[in-house]
């Protein structure tokens, strides 16, 4: 994955994990939710992130095609529910991406103003 930033050459090592597939805002949020929750139902992800089913489905498909997310189908109240979770590869990619973002922000970043 190609990566670089205008934050300076000193952070190049930290940027190795930058992942353009994950960095898209909705996919980044999906990954953050799945990383924190372990596994989450499609409808819950949709509700938590305020997305339509079609938009979420589109982004989940991208993450699944990249091998970052897998789904499990389960029946509840006679209706089929889809549960999503990060794969080991997806978890590594997400955490690597967070490390890259932190490298860009920099270690001496002052606290954000209120």
């Amino acid at each position: 994955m190609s990566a670089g930033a205008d934050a300076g050459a000193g952070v190049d090592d930290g940027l190795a994990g930058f992942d353009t597939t994950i960095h898209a805002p909705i996919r980044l949020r999906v990954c953050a939710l799945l990383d924190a929750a372990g596994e989450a139902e499609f409808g819950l992800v949709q509700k938590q992130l305020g997305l339509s089913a079609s938009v979420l489905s589109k982004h989940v498909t991208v993450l699944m095609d990249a091998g970052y997310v897998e789904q499990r189908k389960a029946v509840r109240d006679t209706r089929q529910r889809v549960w999503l979770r990060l794969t080991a590869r997806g978890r590594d990619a997400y955490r690597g991406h967070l490390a890259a973002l932190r490298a860009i922000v920099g270690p001496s970043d002052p606290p954000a103003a209120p």
Partner: protein
Amino acid sequence: METNGVHGDGHGIRLTQEQARSALADTEQVRASAAALSATPWPTWFFVTLTLYTAALPIMCGGMLAESDWLLPGPAWMGVMLAATAVYGVLSAVASKGWRERTGVALRYDVLPKRATVPLAIGLPVVLVGSALAFRSTGKPAWLIAASLAGVAASVGFHLTFVRLHRKTT
């Protein structure tokens, strides 16, 4: 097409510190809301079940391990223990399934910090079984009552911690 501040030029990525900070803040917000869901407490009926089972465990162990019959014959204590554990197992499975369906997230056992859960995971079984052994050697049921109260305190403490965590993050 959304970009989240990424401008590809075919060779690299340009992302400002502010954009990276904003993306990190975004993930932290999502993580906090997911953590609140993971900290959803058990329903009251299962909290009561869990507390009663924890309270009964040292008494049942004490009855099983007693040198002579105490309140019930030894084999009867064994039967009570097996029946209670089987009922608890079934109710636990029902509660776990209901919890997952209600919250929409996986049931996790690492929501609380390890410095709180590891000592309890080791200490509580030691207290529960140790009290039965102390009762066997001394014949004093106070050991069992003390262990039972310790179990109740741990169960109530954990429940209240989850209630507080859930409220704090929602």
